[in-house]
């Protein structure tokens, strides 16, 4: 491999490396967002279940 070939290959590899680094960093960010969405979904589901159970607990009191 000549010096020119090494430099040209390096230039193309630099572009590939930076794009791959960007994709890796962004995939971490997407994974974090996915976790946050799941956490929020759990919180919302917990919030929806609680009033139902509270209503069920209160019902016998209303009957009596």
């Amino acid at each position, binding site marked *: 491999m000549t010096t*020119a070939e090494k*430099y040209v290959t*390096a*230039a193309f590899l*630099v572009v590939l490396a*930076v794009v791959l680094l960007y994709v890796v960093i*962004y995939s971490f960010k997407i994974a974090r*967002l996915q976790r*946050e969405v799941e956490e*929020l979904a759990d919180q919302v589901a917990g919030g929806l279940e609680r009033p139902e159970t509270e209503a069920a607990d209160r019902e016998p009191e209303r009957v009596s």
Partner: protein
Amino acid sequence: MSLRNRPGPALAVSALALLMTAVALAFYWVPNDANQGFSQRIFYIHVPVALTSYACFIWGAWKALRLLWRHDSAYDLESYTAIHLGTIFGILTLATGSIWAKISWGHWWLWSERQLVLFLILFLFYCAYFMLRYSVDEGPRRERMSAVYALFGVVLIPVSFLAIRLAQGFIHPTVFTLDGPQMTGQIFFVFCLSWAGLLCLFAALYQTELAGKRLDRSLRELRRSMAV
């Protein structure tokens, strides 16, 4: 529009196909340049990357102009995303240009070259955009300041592009003149292929990053409203 309906994956596949074809043709089909020999092949990545960087900054400025015109904060994220990607392509332009300079001129960088210095100024100007953006609290004021800054930055692009053509005594090659591209049909074809691939890559990354940023913003707003 849901994430599934976005053209991101199609653009990413197109970018990959176009860039792989361009690289294969650049290495195995295009003949060696009479003056620079094999090292001229950096042209197929360096120039399209630089032009894509300009395209990103122009797109960011266009979105900034629309924000100022329509007072719609949705354009703020679009402008910011385009400028962010433009800065990444700017890093690549400087890196590939530096490698080319080392083979052709024997130096990694030449301060006497106006085009290199002007591109560096443009790049640093957009780096300062992020410093400005994150020094101001989120809100309409930050959006307006970022938009005005992005519009000022785009003025530097024609300066960077034309200065070298108006100046005398440069060694940086100029292939795009008023008489058209100064290259053979083969070289021009591979150059166009590579640039199309990089524009598709920009569009794919722009769609993905924008979707992520919008989701991030929506989540923060949702958390705030849940906390109240």
